[in-house]
């Protein structure tokens, strides 16, 4: 039987390739054709590595023909946010300035691990400049667009990752999340995203933003595919000082075991404020499906968001200080002006924010003695229109950029693992955060899978293509 590779999940592709029902080359060619056909609208790719991908796919097919074993992602096309080093490409990190860097000499660790599992890299993806963004807009490359309505934002800063997976150009993409940059595009583009525990996945050979909060993780159209990618990428790495030395803890054998006696609660207070009706509806659907009766309060969540904001702007400013001196005109002006302001925050205030972080973490860990999972909105709204500067919430006009990540920042601030799941509302999907205690990605994915099985969390087919 000859399968049509278009529309297959990563798991289905890998199984079909391994069983030689389909070739890795035909899957790769189909993905490249779909990118050519639809990326003129989505603008999710900044680089398509077609020659490399074809070579890699042929090598997998040759290995299979020789009777060799292939990995659990055999022949699965994937793409990466363009802050990952891709051998032979300058790591632009959404910027103009970084295009002057020499081509990367080696792939990022996570690309190496995906390819060691058989996946096929097909390109690098659009993103907000230097990851300081929640919109997916980029002044140098143009915005990546929402696959369900190309007049709307993809979300940032991993906008191309959300757009490419939401548009079914690739079944898996990788992105980064400092304050919400996996969870926000997942929400806007209607896909699953996993921000693992801080330190779980290696960041080696990716361009940083805020060392205290930077995480890398996968996007996919199903929990099964998300888990496959996540498991392929686990493992310590001496090239990332923050990467864990814990043993690999595969989730694939665990996430289908059902909800069991998991204790699930809704995040109250701060997380039930500043929400449009669609965000409330999405959380309500998840709460009803999980039969949640309990609400918990993450103490001082607003202050946690404030501290995350301060640390982000200061560490970002420190990272870019010399570029701000030498090439200020080559930045996106909005990013530049935020970073210059960040350079001016007095040091004691940053130290206090890091001390507050310790306090807040301890309080939230106390909560996790009585619950296993906390549910919260991923974004306050569905994807805004491209270029939209403000929205009106409860009669108050608020800036869009500053408010998109208000519900994600207090969570990544202390590195908790989160699965963002898409709730397929009409006309646009919106995401919900499934939050677990540190190192329990398996629990977040168990709940995500249960919601997927119930039909509550689904990655809708792209409506805008």
């Amino acid at each position, binding site marked *: 039987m000859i399968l049509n590779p278009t529309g297959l999940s990563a798991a289905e592709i890998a199984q079909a390739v391994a069983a030689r029902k389909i070739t890795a080359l035909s899957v790769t060619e189909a993905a490249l054709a779909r990118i050519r056909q639809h990326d003129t609208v989505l603008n999710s790719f900044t680089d398509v590595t077609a020659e490399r991908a074809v070579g890699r796919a042929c090598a997998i097919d040759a290995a299979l023909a020789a009777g060799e074993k292939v990995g659990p992602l055999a022949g699965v096309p994937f793409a990466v946010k363009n802050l990952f080093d891709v051998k032979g490409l300058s790591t632009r990190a959404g910027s103009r300035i970084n295009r002057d860097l020499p081509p990367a000499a080696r792939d990022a660790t996570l690309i190496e691990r995906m390819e060691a599992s058989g996946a096929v890299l097909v390109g690098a993806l659009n993103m907000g400049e230097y990851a300081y963004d929640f919109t997916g807009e980029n002044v140098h490359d143009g915005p990546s667009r929402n696959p369900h309505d190309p007049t709307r934002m993809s979300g940032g800063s991993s906008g191309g990752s959300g757009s490419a997976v939401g548009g079914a150009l690739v079944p898996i993409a990788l992105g980064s999340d400092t304050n919400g940059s996996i969870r926000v595009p997942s929400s806007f583009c209607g896909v699953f995203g996993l921000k693992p525990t801080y*330190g779980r996945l290696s960041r080696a050979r990716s361009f940083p933003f805020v*060392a*205290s909060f930077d995480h890398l993780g996968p996007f996919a159209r199903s929990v099964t595919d998300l888990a496959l990618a996540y498991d392929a990428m686990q493992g310590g790495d001496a090239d990332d*000082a*923050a990467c864990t030395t814990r043993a690999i803890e595969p989730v694939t054998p665990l996430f289908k075991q059902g909800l069991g006696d998991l204790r699930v609660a809704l995040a109250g207070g701060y997380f039930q404020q500043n929400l449009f009706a669609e965000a409330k509806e999405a959380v309500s659907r998840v709460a009803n499906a999980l039969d949640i009766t309990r609400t918990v309060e993450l103490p*001082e969540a*607003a*202050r946690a968001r*404030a*501290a995350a*904001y*301060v640390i982000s*702007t200061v560490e970002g400013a420190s990272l870019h*200080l010399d570029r*701000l*001196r030498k090439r*200020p005109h080559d930045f996106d*002006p*909005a990013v*530049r*002006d*935020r970073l*210059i*302001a*960040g*350079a*001016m*925050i*007095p040091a004691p*205030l*940053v*130290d*206090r*924010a*890091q*001390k*507050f*972080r*310790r*306090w807040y*973490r301890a309080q939230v860990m106390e909560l996790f003695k009585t619950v296993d999972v906390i549910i919260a909105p991923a974004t306050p709204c569905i994807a805004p229109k491209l270029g939209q500067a403000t929205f009106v919430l409860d009669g108050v006009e608020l800036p869009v950029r*500053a408010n998109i990540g208000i519900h994600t920042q207090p969570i990544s601030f*202390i590195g908790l693992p989160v699965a963002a799941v898409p709730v397929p509302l009409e006309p646009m999907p919106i995401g919900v955060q499934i939050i677990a205690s540190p190192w329990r990605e398996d629990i977040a994915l168990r709940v995500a899978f249960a919601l997927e099985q119930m039909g509550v969390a689904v990655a809708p087919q792209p409506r805008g293509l």
Partner: protein
Amino acid sequence: MAADPLDDYIDAVAKALALGIENAWRPAVKANLEVSLRLARMVDDFALPDETEPASIFTA
């Protein structure tokens, strides 16, 4: 009208860090700084024990 002390602060820090700020950018830099300082003060207002460790990430 009296000069805003924040303008003097921006001038002084920019000079200390050798950061050039063109007049056209100045209002946006100032607006961003006002937001950042407001949020930083919100954290500053929260009393913490003297023994509180910062949430460092480096381990040797």
